[in-house]
């Protein structure tokens, strides 16, 4: 019967959603294992989820290598291209690192490991769906799966007031943003209806309908709503206000995850919706032309605001997690610079290489950010108490491994050559320069100098000051050590030999544009 169904509707292709399927099934299994297994075996669910994530990674690599001719399925709901697959790999990497880093914390705080791991897997599934969505409805679906799991994760330490506050804030403001997004989708659905055809939410189809729209103002309102919704999810100014509180209150491994994973997922669908739903128009003075110009212009302004606010406010933070939260806002700003370049590019090849630049940037950010937060988790100790800059006083030479590793991550976040952060910045800035955004790049570069101040501050505190009170270096468990080794190797590999990764991300530039 199943085969008959598939024959009747040949657009069903389960192999195309293999990574998502693996992760979501694994999430259910992990939950079951947790319910029926004896206590004291916390590592079981962790190992299971890592295996599932690796399997999902292999599945997406297989999709990449096999490169099936069919580039879309489920009536255009799911697409398959380099944009999706490279983001899927980023999510897999982020989630594996989160599991590794979180192990010490779950162990120390006696928290339910199974719930944590299954929620993480569901969140990963949501992120993957956001990257693979060819339709606004799937974007929303993925976003909600991701968000609901993340709301719970943020409040995972339910006895801690700050964690509760973080979760509640994230939930209320997040729902608000989701509503914006949904409203935008609805408006666009209405605005793309023509006299003969009903409206559409298919991203590729929207692009074709823009100039036939009967109600252009409705369309513009929809675009604005979408920008607000996505802007909230990737924490760009002026929709960033929730970030510091939520990041500070959430358990550190969850913060690490939120800054790297969901942000990248937000970028994945933000870019797909706007680059392929509202692409550059052949005629500038048309509805599609106005829509394109206005979103590119809005994003350029948002990029400037985001970078500047993130970096300037980070300077005055005394809490390391809060500082890294503002730093993550700033990094979203740098990534937006590349996004703007991709939006402005008229040549599809240039657009794809700008897209690759942003993807690569988010990969480098994920790696160095996870590393930095891994060390912050260790230093914070149980209860997440020791997060002030003063807690880092003079620890560099007491625990050289942690001190120098954290310095490497901070220098990479700053964008010093030899590290991943440098190559990421080079890619994004050159994409923007190619499109002639010299002013934007100069602002970004000056922002980098501003950011030197607070990244260096932590290094200064660790190495250039002496410790006055006693400090016992934390024990580094094997799982965290593995995460640190992976991220340090990643930072230098991406910083010195990024060629292969960039080529792979850019290998088959034909982003699917199948209109159905």
């Amino acid at each position, binding site marked *: 019967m199943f085969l008959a169904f598939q024959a009747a509707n040949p657009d069903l292709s389960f192999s195309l959603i293999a990574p998502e399927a693996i992760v979501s099934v694994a999430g259910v299994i992990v939950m079951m294992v947790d319910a029926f297994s004896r206590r004291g075996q916390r590592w079981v669910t962790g190992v299971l989820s890592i295996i599932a994530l690796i399997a999902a990674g292999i599945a997406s690599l297989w999709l990449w290598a096999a490169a099936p001719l069919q580039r879309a399925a489920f009536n255009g709901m799911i697409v398959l291209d380099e944009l999706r697959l490279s983001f899927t790999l980023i999510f897999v990497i982020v989630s594996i690192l989160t599991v590794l880093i979180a192990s010490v914390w779950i162990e120390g705080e006696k928290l339910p490991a199974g719930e944590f791991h299954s929620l993480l897997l569901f969140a990963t599934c949501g992120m993957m769906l956001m990257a693979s969505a060819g339709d606004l409805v799937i974007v929303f679906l993925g976003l909600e799966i991701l968000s609901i799991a993340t709301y719970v994760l943020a409040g995972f330490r339910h006895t801690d007031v700050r964690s509760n506050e973080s979760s509640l804030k994230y939930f209320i403001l997040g729902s608000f943003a989701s509503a914006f997004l949904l409203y935008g989708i609805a408006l666009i659905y209405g605005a793309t209806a023509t006299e003969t055809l009903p409206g559409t939410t298919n991203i590729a189809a929207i692009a074709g309908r823009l100039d036939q729209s009967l109600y252009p103002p409705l369309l513009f309102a929809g675009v604005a709503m979408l920008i607000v919704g996505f802007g909230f999810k990737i924490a760009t100014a002026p929709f960033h206000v929730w970030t510091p509180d939520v990041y500070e209150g959430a358990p550190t491994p969850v913060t690490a995850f939120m800054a790297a994973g969901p942000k990248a997922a937000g970028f994945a669908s933000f870019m797909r919706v706007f680059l392929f739903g509202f692409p550059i128009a052949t005629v500038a003075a048309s509805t599609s032309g106005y829509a394109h110009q206005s979103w590119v212009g809005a994003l350029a302004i948002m990029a400037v605001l985001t970078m500047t606010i993130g970096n300037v406010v980070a300077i005055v933070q005394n809490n390391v997690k809060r500082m890294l939260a503002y730093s993550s806002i700033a990094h979203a700003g740098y990534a937006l610079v590349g996004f703007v370049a991709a939006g402005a590019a008229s040549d599809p090849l240039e657009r794809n290489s700008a897209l690759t630049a942003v993807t690569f940037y988010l990969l480098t950010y994920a790696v160095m950010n996870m590393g930095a937060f891994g060390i912050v988790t260790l230093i914070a100790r149980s209860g997440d108490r020791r997060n002030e800059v003063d807690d880092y006083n003079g620890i560099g*030479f007491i625990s*050289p491994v942690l001190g120098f590793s954290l310095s490497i991550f901070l*220098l990479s976040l700053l964008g*010093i*050559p*030899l590290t991943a952060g*440098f190559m990421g910045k*080079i*890619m994004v*800035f*050159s994409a923007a*320069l*190619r499109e002639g955004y*010299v002013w934007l*790049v*100069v602002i970004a*570069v*000056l922002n*980098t*100098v501003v950011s*030197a*101040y607070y990244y*260096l501050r932590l290094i*200064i505190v660790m*190495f*250039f000051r002496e410790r006055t009170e006693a400090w016992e270096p934390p024990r580094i468990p094997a799982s965290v050590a593995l995460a640190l080794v992976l991220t340090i190797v990643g930072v230098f590999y991406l910083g010195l*030999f*990024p*060629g292969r990764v*960039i*080529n792979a991300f*850019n290998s088959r530039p034909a982003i699917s544009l199948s209109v159905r």
Partner: protein
Amino acid sequence: MNHLLTILVLLPLIGAATTLIYSFTPGARESHHRWIALGFSTLSFLVSLLLIQSASGNIASFRLEENYSWITSIGARFHLGVDGISLWLVLLTTLLMPISILSSWTAITRRQLTYYILMLLLESAMIGVFISLDLLLFYLFFEASLIPMFFLIGIWGGERKIYAAVKFFIYTSVGSLLMLVGIIALYFIHQRATGIATFDYAILVDTLRSGALTISPRAEFWLFLAFAFAFCIKIPLWPLHTWLPDAHTEAPTAGSVILAGILLKMGTYGLLRFNFGLFPNAAKQFAPIMITLAVIGIIYGALVAMVQPDVKRLVAYSSVSHMGFVVLGLFSFTEEGMQGALYQMLTHGVSTGALFLIVGMIYERRHTRMISDFGGLARPMPWFSAFFVIASLSSIGLPFLNGFVGEFLIMMGAWTSTIVRHVWIVTMLAGTGMIWAAVYMLWMLQRVVFGTKTSEANAKLSDLNAREIGLLVPLLVLMFFMGIYPSTFLSRSRASIEAARQRISSPQSGGVNIALTERRGSLREQVHHR
């Protein structure tokens, strides 16, 4: 020996790795790290001597080139090469490194492992700066050299080390990041014009020279500015010099030696190599401004040096003055001036390096650097005083010592330069800089070395020990040698300097004039030629 340059970059890195691995072996002693560092830096120096052999051909083109693909997707290559200009700067680097390490022997007692690893990492980055022929690779080394120095100042520095380290870092990175924007912009301009995506300096110069790529005057103006800004901060050219006195004063002795001796030369080297090579028209356009700033720097540096109560700060400000001469020589666009500028870079490295070492030695004994605390050191410390006097005279530019040759050639070049009108005013003003140098140096010597002893503590100071004499002697020998036989150096750099000059005078002419490269001769002939 085809991989000589890669070996030179890698040797210090291998040294750093060896030091690190050694520290994990059972029975490792902290006092052994310095031996490993000294061994590897000496080895680097010996290996770098092989470069002279290869440079004896006296041709302008790059030699010992190594060119491998690096990041294919953006066309960046691992391209190394050395010519008559970079040859001497590499040698200066490899010479000053073992000396600096030896000077830290007893001065650095805390965290020796980290210290010597950072020194070796720094050496590797600095060598890389002088021999990279790919703009992205150059930027990589240029910026990477910042990090070890930041740590050196911040961990082992003086009282205001944090302030100095942060100021040093932020100042220099503002400049270099804007240069990065310039590098990428140039990359795209080149790609638009020729369809080739490359950061390769040699290719860029070739396409510029052949006329396949013409940069619009406006773009060239901004590109020149972006590059020059980075280099002028590094030099440092007045009024971008304010990071220097702080960094030099707060850095540990070896850090000051490297800062003054090598890091500052990255700036002038960058101007000579990249600004002249890539943007010759803008260079001509900017010459009057650069010359004016250089002359202001010469006089300003000297005047401020005169009133410093701290010996180290005095030497630091004298660097501003001396580096002003280098910029003046470069922008005179004459062979004498540019040769003199290169010579002055080497001279300044040697004599200011020696001065910082000497100041470090007295600081180790007395824990003060205030001029007023000293006086009458000649009696208890004859060796020290002799060395101090010679190094100071070399810095002043006394004939028969190295400082004279460079400054004389620069003045010569400035006098004959046609790039600015009323060139005699410039030369006269710069000439007063030499007089001021004599004033502040001799006055300082008189108060510190001679004069009456002001404190009982000075009478009991011990003279230099064998290690300290040993590390100063090579520099002193070099001061005399460079003062008496400058042609040893100048004859090997002439062809490359001449090529750089020709880039400016005729931006779109073909390769180097062969007839000129064949010319050899002593300094006197060269001067008479004009």
